[in-house]
């Protein structure tokens, strides 16, 4: 209890907690879970976008998409490293992902059906992610906060790129306009769900707020996202699939319709179109790569032994 108080004081003073610092078990566990989930989301998130790399409509877009997906792998890497500072191995986290014990962002359980989805994912999914992540750059845990600074910088770039794809389509041929409107219709509500349940239904929130792992409520971030995004879409002549969406002068923000939380929980619990395929793909990559990882270890060991055998001779 004294320790907890002292810890909370450090947090309140905006001190960063570092790997070797003592920390409450709950704090450590929450962070491991959250950073792990975040890392897994980056890794699983490579799949829906990867699905369009081979069919990208121009070389410029193909290169940009490849670079983006590569960045996501990079984010996964920093985040796994950040989690490792809390005493969990990447392998362990990977196993938890494959067994279904660890979660990842539900948004990646929706399929990418046309090229427009790539634009919409950049604009909206990365946009929502940034909204969630910017506060994490000031998270109380140092390694996580520092990883997030780098992640956020790259995500903003992706988001601008996504919006630019959407803009190009919205100003394109009738088929392109139809494609991008259809993609917006499919992704809008799932993206709003990315901010999580209403504050009234959200677990963990208060403690996480106190620990400064979380700094804003789900609903506040969602509102901020809607307010920032709707004008961008309207500027392009796109329609949001929500008849109740309208500007509320009084509150200085948009009102929007009710979110289908049944759909949200269905997908979280494994009922999305792609849940099974995503995990199967990840597992297949992991299992098919086992012989490569084993060979790398075996070779390193051979080198070590050869060096050890060579050393005494050299010393003679």
């Amino acid at each position, binding site marked *: 209890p004294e320790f907890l108080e002292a810890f909370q004081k450090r947090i309140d003073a905006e001190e960063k907690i570092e790997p070797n610092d003592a920390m409450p078990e709950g704090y450590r566990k929450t962070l491991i879970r959250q950073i792990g989930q975040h890392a897994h989301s980056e*890794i699983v998130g*490579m*799949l829906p976008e*990867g699905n369009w*790399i*081979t*069919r*990208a*409509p*121009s*070389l*410029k*877009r*193909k*290169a940009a998409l*490849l*670079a983006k*997906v*590569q960045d996501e*792998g*990079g984010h*996964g*890497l920093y985040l*796994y490293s950040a989690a490792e500072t809390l005493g969990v191995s*990447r392998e362990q986290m990977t196993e938890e992902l494959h067994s279904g014990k660890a979660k990842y962002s539900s948004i990646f359980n929706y399929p990418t059906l046309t*090229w427009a989805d790539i634009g919409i994912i950049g604009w909206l999914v990365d946009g929502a992610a940034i909204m969630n992540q910017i506060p994490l750059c000031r998270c109380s845990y140092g390694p996580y906060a520092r990883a997030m600074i780098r992640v956020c910088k790259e995500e903003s770039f992706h988001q601008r790129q996504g919006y630019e*794809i959407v803009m*190009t389509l919205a100003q*394109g*041929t009738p*088929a*392109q306009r139809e494609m991008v409107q259809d993609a917006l219709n499919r992704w809008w509500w799932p993206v709003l769900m990315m901010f999580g349940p209403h504050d009234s239904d959200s677990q963990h929130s208060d403690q996480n707020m106190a620990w400064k792992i979380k700094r804003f409520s789900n609903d506040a971030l969602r509102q901020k996202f809607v307010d920032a995004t709707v004008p961008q879409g309207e500027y392009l002549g796109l329609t949001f699939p929500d008849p109740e969406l309208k500007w509320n002068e009084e509150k200085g923000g948009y009102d929007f319709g009710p979110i289908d939380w049944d759909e949200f929980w269905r997908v979280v619990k494994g009922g999305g179109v792609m849940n099974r395929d995503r995990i199967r*793909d990840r597992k*297949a*990559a*992991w299992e*098919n*790569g*086992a*012989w*490569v*990882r*084993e*060979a*790398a270890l*075996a*070779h*390193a060991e*051979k080198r070590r032994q050869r060096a050890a055998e060579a050393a005494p001779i050299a010393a003679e």
Partner: protein
Amino acid sequence: MALFEALLELADDHLVLGHRLSEWCGHAPMLEEDLALPNMALDLIGTSRTLYTYAGEVEGAGRDEDALAYLRDEMEYRNCLLVERPNGDFAQTMLRQLYFAAFMEPYWKAALESPDETVRGIAGKAVKEMAYHIRHAGEWVIRLGDGTEESARRMQEAVEELHRYTDELFHSSAAARGVDALPDRAAIRPEWDRVIGEIFAEARLEIPQVPFPQQGGREMQHGEALGHMLAEMQVTHRAHPGAVW
């Protein structure tokens, strides 16, 4: 138009191999390779874009990089057969990459002396990238060749599968020969042999006898794999003629 032809040979090699590498995306054997493979793919696709743009200028018919990449069919692609081979397993992908980079690195080095300024510019960037590809792919060839029993077997199989396509790297179609602006492909052979020889020695691999080297891609006679790859690569672009992306 020999320069145009020769640039297309180079550009097609880079794009096709870059596309093949990009097929790995999200399916690599470890996260580090999920970064390295797209990285190499990006180098190759980036170089292909500059080459296509320059080829389009040389041709003077108003074709840009996308017209050349997306609107030519299989019977117009000039890539060598090596780069169109399906990815196979990780051993085959890495060996194919080594074979290609061990050719391109000395090729671009020679191209640094080109009288053509654009070529020198492309070469200056590409030569460093290819040196990295040799290192990265070469290290994997060594690790896998001298790793476990299984990895050695797979690496050996990769050599049997792919070595027969390497001769074509040193070959240009008749239409693309005698271009001052670009190095002579055949002259790259000794350096390629040296690099591959060194890496194979460390990897405990034998350079195989190849009774029947395969070629044909330069003459636009491909294997059955390229058509399937291009069908996928070009589908979106072709479905929307004239659209801007």
